[in-house]
């Protein structure tokens, strides 16, 4: 399919505003200008050209609206449509973010400030944290913010800390965030799929600022030794960080604040049903325990006694600005509406059913795929195609064959600690019929992996393209239509 630039035809009219009375050179020194027609390199298309182009592109994509998408660690649940309407309401979408900074102009955005205040309050209640900031614009951004908070805490206390510990099952963002904030990263090995207190203790010393954990972890296993871990960290005044990627498993069953975590980031686009958008935008609010409250980014939204809201910038210990304004407010809006819609019972049921579905799939597949840690899992589980790989059909091949069935592949080759890893997260929004069809499809593929491995290795064959050459892409480095 041609690129949109190849469809361009100079002079074709798009959505043009009215013609200015004078050429721009009447107002701006021509030496500062780039020149006339065609100099931007943007395509000239009719509106119909554009509509057809992107309609066609959309039809080359899998999405939750069109396909089961059991991508482990990503929580690809249904995204309620009404929240799109909510985020597009003119009082929200049309609101300039500096309005509350004008004198007395908090009064111009009381509705928006209430959304922020109430969202923070709900997230505090869900997680048991003392305070939240909505500013981080994605999960990894939340992690960075969280690590900055940890650094501020230690700096303020005069602690000399240089290291952050991450288990080997951690998301790649954890060590990357720690490094970006200036820390040395120490990786510890999991034992029986989870963090072992003894291994942790061996890595702990006074220079450790924090341990970053995901719970349940990326194997879908609950971190059973949490109380001992919390105790061990306390001894060296190290903080405990919670990667909220897997919050979908535990709502109402555990509150990370109550369990002893000091800093938490959530992925609103995972647990709270906002769309992933093909890679974003997300939203990564960060919650903290009481002792870290003072370090939260500014601004913070405050409710006055008269019920009015205002933005407070007066926190001298704050780490400062992590976002230009208040984070991805439009995403927060959707998550807020989602929380109001589901309520207490609904959120508990979310986690219960996410875990139920994952265990159901795990049990139904255990005779066909190796399950390295085959015990009760949380909202996802990890299988392994080592047996199939031994005969030449790798996890990658199985993933591609699933695409031909109209199902997006599970996450593969992550976490790194399981060979030929296939990480399945069904979420609570998929019906038993969909789960059963997935099992049937997978069994058919695994059977074919024995009888006709070449057919699996040749997948996909029903999509707009067959397998793509990633090496060629990296070597050729054609990154724009001009290369």
């Amino acid at each position, binding site marked *: 399919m041609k690129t*949109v630039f190849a469809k361009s035809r100079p002079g074709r*009219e*798009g959505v043009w*505003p009215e013609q*200015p009375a004078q050429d*721009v050179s009447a*107002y*701006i020194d021509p*030496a500062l200008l780039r020149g006339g*027609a065609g100099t*931007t*390199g943007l395509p*000239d*298309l009719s509106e119909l050209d*554009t509509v057809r182009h992107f*309609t066609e592109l959309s039809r080359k994509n899998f*999405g939750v*609206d069109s396909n089961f998408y059991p991508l482990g660690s990503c929580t690809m649940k249904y995204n309620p449509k009404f929240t799109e309407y909510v985020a597009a309401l*003119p009082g*929200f979408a049309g609101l*300039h973010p*500096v*309005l509350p900074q004008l004198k007395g102009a908090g009064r111009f*955005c009381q509705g928006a400030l209430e959304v922020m205040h109430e969202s923070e309050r709900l997230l505090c*209640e869900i997680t*048991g944290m003392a305070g939240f900031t909505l500013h981080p*614009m994605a999960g990894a*951004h939340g*992690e960075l913010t969280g690590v*900055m908070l940890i650094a501020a805490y230690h700096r303020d206390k005069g602690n000399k800390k240089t290291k952050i510990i991450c288990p080997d099952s951690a998301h*790649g963002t954890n060590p*990357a965030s720690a490094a970006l904030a200036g820390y040395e990263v120490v990786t510890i090995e999991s034992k029986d799929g989870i963090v072992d207190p003894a291994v942790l203790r061996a890595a702990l010393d006074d220079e450790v600022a924090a341990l970053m954990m995901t719970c349940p972890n990326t194997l879908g296993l609950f971190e059973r030794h949490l*109380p001992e871990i919390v105790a061990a960290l306390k001894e060296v005044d190290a903080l405990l960080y919670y990667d909220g990627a897997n919050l979908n498993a535990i709502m109402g069953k*555990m509150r990370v604040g*109550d369990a002893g975590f000091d800093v938490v980031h959530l992925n609103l*686009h995972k647990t709270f049903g906002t*769309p992933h*958008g093909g*890679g974003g*935008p997300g939203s990564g609010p960060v919650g903290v325990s009481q002792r870290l409250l003072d370090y939260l980014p500014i601004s913070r939204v405050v409710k006055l006694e008269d019920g009015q809201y205002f933005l407070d910038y007066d926190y001298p210990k704050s780490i400062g600005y992590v*976002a230009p304004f208040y984070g991805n407010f439009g995403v927060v809006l959707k998550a807020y509406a989602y929380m109001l819609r589901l309520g*207490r*019972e609904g959120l508990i049921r*979310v986690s219960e059913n996410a*875990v*139920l*579905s994952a*265990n159901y799939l795990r049990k139904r597949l255990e005779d066909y795929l190796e399950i390295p840690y085959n015990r*009760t899992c949380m909202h996802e589980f990890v299988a392994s195609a080592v047996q199939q790989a031994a005969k030449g059909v790798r996890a990658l091949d199985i*993933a591609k064959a699933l*695409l031909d069935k109209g199902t997006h*592949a599970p996450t593969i080759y992550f976490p790194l600690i399981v060979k030929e890893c296939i990480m399945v997260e069904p979420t*609570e929004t998929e*019906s*038993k019929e969909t789960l059963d069809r997935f099992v049937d499809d997978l069994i058919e593929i695994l059977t074919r992996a024995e009888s006709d491995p070449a057919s699996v290795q040749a997948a996909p064959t029903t*999509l707009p393209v067959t397998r*793509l*050459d*990633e090496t*060629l892409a990296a070597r050729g480095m054609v990154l724009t239509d001009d290369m």
Partner: protein
Amino acid sequence: MPYIPHTPEDLREMLAVIGAASVEDLFTEIGPDMRPKRFDLPKGRSEMAVVKHMEHLSARNRSDLVCFIGAGVYDHYIPHAVDALTSRGEFYTAYTPYQPEASQGTLQAIFEYQTAVTRLLGMDCANASVYDGGTALFEAIMMAVRATKRTRVVVSGTVNPIYRTMLASYTCNLNLEFVNVPGRGAETDIEALKAAVDDKTAAVIVQNPNFFGSIEDCTDLFAHAKSKKALSIVSAYPVMQAILKTPGAMGADVAVAEGQSLGMPMSFGGPYLGIMTCTKEMVRQMPGRIVGRTKDTKGRTGYVLTLQAREQHIRRQKATSNICSNQALCAMRALVHMCLLGDEGLRRTAALCVERAHYAAKRLTELPGVTLLNKGSFGNEFAIRLPMSALEAIDKLSAKGFVPGFPLGRYYQGMDDVLLVAVTERRTREEIGVMAELLGGIL
């Protein structure tokens, strides 16, 4: 429960397969001491009730004010086809395109986005986006620090002060040295910047148009930086960029921009779009996702995420950045927006904004005691000094439904009487006229 399909019968059947007596049995690993102390959330509500509540909250925001605020976020018109296309479920309910064969829509769109923004900024390569214009600037600095192995960064005081504040937050643990070079009035002090760039400098950072709206040529400055082996970084405004000499043409190594003006609603601060572009030489320093063109096994063209060895999911703590989720759908919005307007449409939009802004500047500077700060060319934003407090002027006019600009005193000492006025194509000559009259009435 809404969005949860399991019926009681499903539940029974599934538990039977699992071999568990109840759902609670699946949570036994969470010991009693780890159970929540409380979980006092409100009762769930119907979609209708939530929508009504949110409409009520929306109505409590005054998005109807006639607004001459810019300061980095601009009220441009967004063609409705942008929403219609980007809201197609296959786009917005997809994940990051890790399975390229099932994601050619997203991937080709990002490739086209990369092409569009590199052309707009006159650069070679782009990534698939970062969060916003501010974090883009931070990432640009980190690129320069890595590439030059230097830690000194020279920043013009005419760069968006919000971004400069963000840079300070992000780098406070990183042993970087920031040198702030104040502007002269509304102009960037290019000579002072030159003087500040030495052979320990990693990068020099300017914004064009600068925060005061002034348009400047940094070609000399960048040549000087090059001679010191420092990198040149520009923060740009995409709509104005349609008519302005590009960062690439000035010799920039990295050009970033807040992409909000390309089809994102103002939405009280986000989601926006961090545009990030660089020269070919710098591409391996660039953070985030990059899409490249390749072939499938039958020789057909296709697109994949490429150069992933820079990224955190491969390199972990050694990655160029920690970024994972970016603003992909915003990038797609920007692409669709640029396609709908096209070359002529975006250039004309820029020119119309400039024309209206110059009309506004004329009307306002005709008022007694009002003077223009900008000495040279400006685009669709300019700074005026009032014979009164800018905050007070805003307060009085907003009571009549107009916000005449942004009070620069918030960020610049000695500028309590300076108003930063932005004009987009959505502001009519009539509105400008009324605003000028209202302002005249309170001076």
